[in-house]
């Protein structure tokens, strides 16, 4: 098998004296669809920030595409879709097209301006997520589900090999959530993309992902979702309320 996309090797993180992540080991292979689930405050966002090098681990080692993170510079290989509701000001005066084009900023590099080729990439990315018709609309006027597709297009436009999504279904209605997961599985099958999705919503996530990592400061389980339910790891991460949640879905 080819080299792993992401390796976390004994990663720990603390803010001052508070331990947020403890000894996390995790390997993600090309084509994986990994869901990282855990309750609020379990360290999910911190783990994402460490993977994206927005934070440095207190201990341990992160590798991306076979390179130690300090030596890794091809950040355009990684597309990051932030949590919709918090990532931008909803009064921001920009069209869908302008937002998606900004996804090419890093790959163009300093002082280079986008040309016809880049505009073509934008059209393709918008078609890929099915919102090409909205490209002249102001982003703040769209529904939560549409905004989210735009943010995915912004991440896809630089043609990443790994797509990381933070709580992607917050503020998105149920019908749009279903479409969203269909889109992700298409990306995985057709573009061969590796996906990492972070969510607190275990019920929905485990229905769609290929493997699941249950996080609550430590990593409690990493494997197929079915085994996860069987071995009752969710009660360890979430407490006994997890059982009720599962039946609700």
């Amino acid at each position, binding site marked *: 098998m080819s080299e792993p996309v992401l390796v976390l090797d004994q990663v720990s993180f603390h803010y001052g004296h508070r331990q947020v992540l403890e000894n996390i080991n995790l390997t993600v292979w090309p084509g994986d669809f990994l869901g990282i689930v855990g309750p609020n405050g379990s360290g999910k966002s911190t783990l994402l920030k460490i993977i*994206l090098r927005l934070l440095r681990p207190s201990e341990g080692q992160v590798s991306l595409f076979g390179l130690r993170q300090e030596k890794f510079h091809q950040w355009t290989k990684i597309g990051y879709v932030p949590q919709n509701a918090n990532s931008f000001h909803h*009064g921001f005066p920009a069209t869908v097209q302008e937002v998606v084009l900004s996804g090419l900023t890093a790959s163009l590099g*300093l002082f280079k301006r986008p040309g016809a080729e880049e505009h073509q990439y934008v059209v393709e990315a918008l078609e890929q997520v099915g919102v090409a018709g909205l490209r002249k609309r102001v982003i703040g006027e769209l529904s939560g589900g549409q905004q989210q597709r735009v943010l995915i297009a912004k991440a896809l436009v630089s043609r990443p090999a790994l797509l990381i999504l933070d709580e992607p279904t917050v503020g998105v209605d149920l019908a749009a959530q279903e479409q969203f997961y269909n889109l992700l599985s298409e990306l995985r099958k057709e573009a061969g993309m590796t996906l990492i999705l972070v969510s607190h919503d275990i019920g929905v996530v485990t229905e769609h992902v290929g493997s699941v990592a249950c996080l609550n400061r430590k990593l409690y389980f990493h494997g197929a979702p079915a085994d996860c339910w069987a071995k009752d790891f969710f009660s360890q991460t979430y407490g006994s309320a997890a059982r009720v949640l599962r039946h609700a879905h």
Partner: protein
Amino acid sequence: MQRAFAAGLMVALLCPTIGIFLVLRRLSMIGEMFSHVSLAGVALGVFAGVYPLATAVGLSLFAAAGLEALRRTYRMFGDLAIALMISFGISLAVILISLAQAFNATLFSYLFGSVIAITGQDLQLILILGILVLALVYALQKELFIIAFDEEGARAAGVRVDLVNALFVVATALTITLSMRVVGILLVSSLITVPVAAALQLSRSYRSTVLYAYLFAIIAVLLGLFIAFHADLAPGGSIVLTSLGIFTLAALSRKFFGLGGERDENTSLVGTAEGKGL
């Protein structure tokens, strides 16, 4: 008079160029900060008997470096760094003004702007440094856009956010110091925010926001200077009141004619811009 219009036109281009990113990032207070520091710089020039605009530029660049250093130290409290620098600027200005016993016409022309006091030397400095700032911001346009949209996302995507931010702070420092010669220290930050606030009332894209902001700033500066010249007023007041008039017209035409589209008031950026900038 002609010098004032030439300098005014450059200022009308500079202020919205910087203003759009300050407003979108809700950093309008940085405008206040550099105008206070510029006042100290002018007072230093008057006190030391050297060209005040040069000392103002020098001290503003020093403050820009100070701001970046403070922001790195107090990463969690960006506002605090700005508040500290404002305190530094104003207290230093007060001391230097009293030392120089400089409550005179020169200082007043810097406080409120001037049509007649702009010298050939001023105009030269404003045009040269102004072109430099415009070129720099034009070159960093796409980086500044994505940082304004989502700074953390830009960082995650590998954009060199710290470098771009540092260059932008320098561009801001220069813009405010140069603009104060025309509109005056007390009103610079208004010319930075008000045309952008007016543009946000009507715009349907980032591109149109930029174009409207330039248009409104140019109208405000030229009309304001014209009024100031003929009515013998300090131009700062007439320029900023004109741009507030444009803002009112823009807000009304949005309300009554539906220009700029329906937008939820809660998601408008304009309230924030006004609250912090005026």
